[in-house]
């Protein structure tokens, strides 16, 4: 082929039938207007685990100043399952999450009404720091402290450890064991075990987020709150963390807020859909994604808005 000749012009065939991709095999439509958005075969088969109710929200209203951000939400949080809160921006799901460990109190002008209980104790009667040790949170942006990996993971524990001989020791056998255990549960131990004194800021984004999860797990919480933990991460790290979350649900009650519908689909057992502060629908994920009861849920899940 002479390199100086221009490439051949393609002939456009106009009298042939257009090619349409055949629809993938899925569950038969049950008569609803739109076909299910997400095919069920994408969900991995999961063994069901007995669920113990850990926290309960009853008629919770939350306001910042004069604006009601969360209106009349009633939800259970169970150990043994992953609860996903989905909804568009501004639906109040993050505020609801933060109220579970009373992080909303940090903002001035916050007000609440309703009842939130942890193991049948109203969380507002618990001492706030003790509550936060039992209900831990992982944030959207990984935020490891500017310390070594070990110091990060042992942070909460070190602050609680009783002073020994008048001085708080940094590395005690108990602390080291607890830190190693937390790192294992977060799936990070093998990658960092060779040097725990490294600065935590040198880890990659996904590793940092897993470090934050390890840090949250170190104190042995009963509930783990995750605020869009993978939104700043690449797909591979996201997949690792999602597997982690599913694995952790047996020992910790997990609440995850996500604006990524596919992620909710992959990890959640129960889903709460929030819109403009209201809990529009709550139910098992199969119901929310395949057979939503409310029209608004159907619209959101099928992508009509969001």
């Amino acid at each position, binding site marked *: 082929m002479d390199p100086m000749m221009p490439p051949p012009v393609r002939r456009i065939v106009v009298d042939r039938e257009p090619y349409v991709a055949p629809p993938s095999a899925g569950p038969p439509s049950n008569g609803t207007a739109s076909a299910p958005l997400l095919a069920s075969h994408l969900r991995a088969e999961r063994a069901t685990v007995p669920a113990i109710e850990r926290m309960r929200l009853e*008629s919770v*209203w939350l*306001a910042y100043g004069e604006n*009601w951000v969360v*209106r*009349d939400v009633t939800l259970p949080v169970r150990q043994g399952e992953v609860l996903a809160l989905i909804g568009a921006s501004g639906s109040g799901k993050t505020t609801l999450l933060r109220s579970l460990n*009373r992080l*909303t*109190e940090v903002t001035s002008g*916050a*007000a*609440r*009404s*309703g009842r939130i209980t942890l193991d049948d104790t109203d969380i*507002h009667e618990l*001492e*706030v*720091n*003790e509550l936060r040790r039992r209900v831990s949170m992982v944030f959207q942006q990984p935020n490891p402290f500017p310390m070594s990996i070990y110091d990060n993971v042992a942070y909460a524990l070190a602050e609680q450890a009783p002073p020994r001989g008048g001085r708080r020791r940094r590395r005690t056998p108990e602390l080291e064991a607890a830190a190693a255990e937390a790192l294992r549960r977060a799936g990070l131990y093998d990658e960092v075990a060779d040097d725990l004194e490294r600065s935590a800021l040198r880890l990659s984004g996904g590793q940092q987020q897993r470090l934050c999860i390890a840090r949250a797990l170190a104190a042995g919480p009963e509930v783990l709150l995750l605020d869009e933990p993978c939104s700043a991460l690449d797909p591979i790290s996201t997949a690792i963390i999602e597997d982690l979350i599913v694995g952790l649900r047996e020992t910790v009650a997990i609440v995850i807020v996500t604006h990524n519908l596919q992620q909710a689909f992959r990890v959640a057992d129960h889903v709460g859909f929030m819109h*403009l502060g*209201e809990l*529009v629908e709550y139910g098992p994920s199969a119901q929310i994604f395949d057979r939503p009861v409310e029209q608004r849920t159907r619209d959101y899940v099928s992508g009509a808005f969001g």
Partner: protein
Amino acid sequence: MAATEILTGSHPTPVRPPRASTASWPLADRIAYGLCWAIGIALCVVTAWIVLYMLIKGAGQLRPSLFTESPAPSTNQSQSGGFRDPLIGTLILAAVGTVIAAPIGVATAAWLSEYARPAGLARAVESAVEMIAGAPSIVLAIFGLLIFSQSYFGFLSQTAANGAVIGQSFLVAGAIMSLLAIPLIVSSTREALAQLPDRLREASWALGKTRATTIRHVLLPAIRPSIAGGIVLGMGRIIGDTAIVVILLGPAFKNEPVGNLPLLGTLRGTGSTLTSFVYNNSPAGEGNAPQKAYAAAFVLMLVVLLLNWLVTRLTGERPQRRRWLPGFGRLTTWTR
């Protein structure tokens, strides 16, 4: 759940969260918390006291005649004379010092930033600038005293009858004062130049302009606010310094010109500034008019306020990188 009912209907009255209490904290933490509050309140009280004290003592003494009259010897010091001469002296000194410091400072900064060859020389110059930044002003003053009383510098001040050079004048003091301002100007300019993106320089070079032209017509105009900010900082340091004035400007209260030429005579003559006026009128100096000292000190503080405000206006408030001057040196940038 109909949306409209909830929006307009009744909703439960909200409960504000209780104030964070420290009751549950360990004792050591509570002590620390208490200390924070105690010292914090003490800080508030002390700063308020200082500000009010100066306000009352100083502003209470202010009269228009203070600004218009020269210091006059008299037995009733609290009523006679003013500080016109020291005020003018401050302005003259700041002007002289800045006029000398600005070109040298900007030139040095430009050379360090854009040329810096050979590398050893550049490092030496950097170290020299840092050294003056850290040197006590009294040491600079003493150095100036020796140098400028040499006969070949006699033209900068006056020569006494027996041939000894006095070595004290506005020019002399201004020259040494410029050493105070140069590090501030150099670091302001260097930082600003370092923040300019390289593509600015590359664009100019691509048009065929030499480096010198680039500096003069592209880079320096771009950082004018920072240069101005650095100059104002330097001015602030000059105005606030007393040691150099006391040593190099003579013990007089009034500005005594030398010779007959109007401007040059004043510059070659001795005089006083607000700072030396305050010093000399305090019990530590000759005069004994604390009232005038307070008034002058108050005016000094006003000038500092004005300069502070000028700096923030010029450089723009950047919360991450505030400058805590004028008055003394700042954290200079080490580029190594």
